[in-house]
């Protein structure tokens, strides 16, 4: 058991935890949070692969690290879009969850 393997297992548990939160939470914002947990767990796995590729004086393989940096920024933009959609849904229908029977206000413009 070395450091990269430890963080790899941590990333695996985070993905499972995020998946559970995504399915179980009724509030859309909590689902988005859980989805971010899944994403960060996957990025940790990338980081583990990068760390294990350490060679020639570099602390880690730089290619997976670059992919992770790109991924974090893109995941944030997707999160921002998802949050904007949830807020707009709430403004239009007053829905607190994603269930179709929950919309109780007539569509307001």
């Amino acid at each position, binding site marked *: 058991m070395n*450091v990269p393997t430890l963080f790899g297992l941590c990333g*695996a548990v985070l993905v499972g935890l995020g*998946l559970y939160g995504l399915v179980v939470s009724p509030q859309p914002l909590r689902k988005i949070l859980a989805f971010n947990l899944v994403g960060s767990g996957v990025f940790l796995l990338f980081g*583990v692969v990068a760390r294990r590729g350490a060679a020639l004086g570099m602390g880690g393989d730089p290619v997976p*690290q*670059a992919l992770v940096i790109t991924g974090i920024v893109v995941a*944030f*933009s997707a999160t*921002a879009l998802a*949050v904007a959609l949830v807020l707009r849904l709430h403004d239009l229908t007053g829905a607190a969850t994603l269930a179709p029977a929950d919309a109780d206000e007539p569509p307001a413009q």
Partner: protein
Amino acid sequence: MNLALLFDGMLVVLILAVAVWTVTVRDSFAAGIGYAVYGLLLALAWVRLAAVDAALTEAAIGGGLTSVLMIRATVRLRAGEAAARAATPGPLPRLLAALLGGSVAAGLALVVLALPDPAPTLAPQVAEHIATTGLGNAVTAVLLSFRAIDTLLEAVVLIYALIAVWTLTPDRFWGGRPGPKYETDPNGMLAYLARLLPPIGIVVAVYVLWVGADLPGGKFQAGTLLAAMWLLAIMAGLTEAPPISRRWLRGVLVAGTVVFLAIGFAGVPLAGAFLAYPEGFAKPLIVAIEAASMLSIAFTLALLVLGPPERRDQA
């Protein structure tokens, strides 16, 4: 079991504990705060994995901007909280979800334990060709030279996300200002911080951009810092979010991508391929791309946090 492994083990336990708390806590506002803490702890994990650039990005974006986004949204959705909490599924769906999460986690854990030894790596190829870029930081070299097409497409994805957020504007507010009008005491603590911190933040951001050529840093981290400083000034009421119809705003948003594309296409006649840098000119071109992209990223990220326009221009 040496001391470093013990430290990392405790860090992992802390990360998992905060993650479990974020998923299971009843109040959504508390979950948003928990995610901020989780992002900062994850940045520590990145440092332990010797990926300092990723640690900076995770701390800035994960622990910073995403949390601001989440907290603003949970405050706005507070009214529907009780109704949503009543819709929590019963024990059987939770058990099935736990089985699903557990099996996915177990599968990934098996993959992690079965990773090949010796690990395949591209570090030798990077080390072989990094001298052509004139950079010292291998990750920046990969981002802006060896995998520059990924970075270019990511800049475009950011603009797409912003346009998608803007399409959610109600018709009567199109062209207006995003976010509410923040009115705070002009002599209060927040206004004081918003006057004191942004100059320091701008200097630190330019430093992070400049030093990212040879040490951990780069345009994403610097752009996030600038976005945070601008958001602080807006939230303290010192400045207003610009209306999205302004030409200068739209020009700044696309400036980074335009510069990137221009240099990329110029590489075709000058160096033989799209996004190829001419001999000896790599570093100045890379610095130009990074500087233009930093501004675009800063404005794009801040506007993504502010959301679609909510009031008219004159408001």
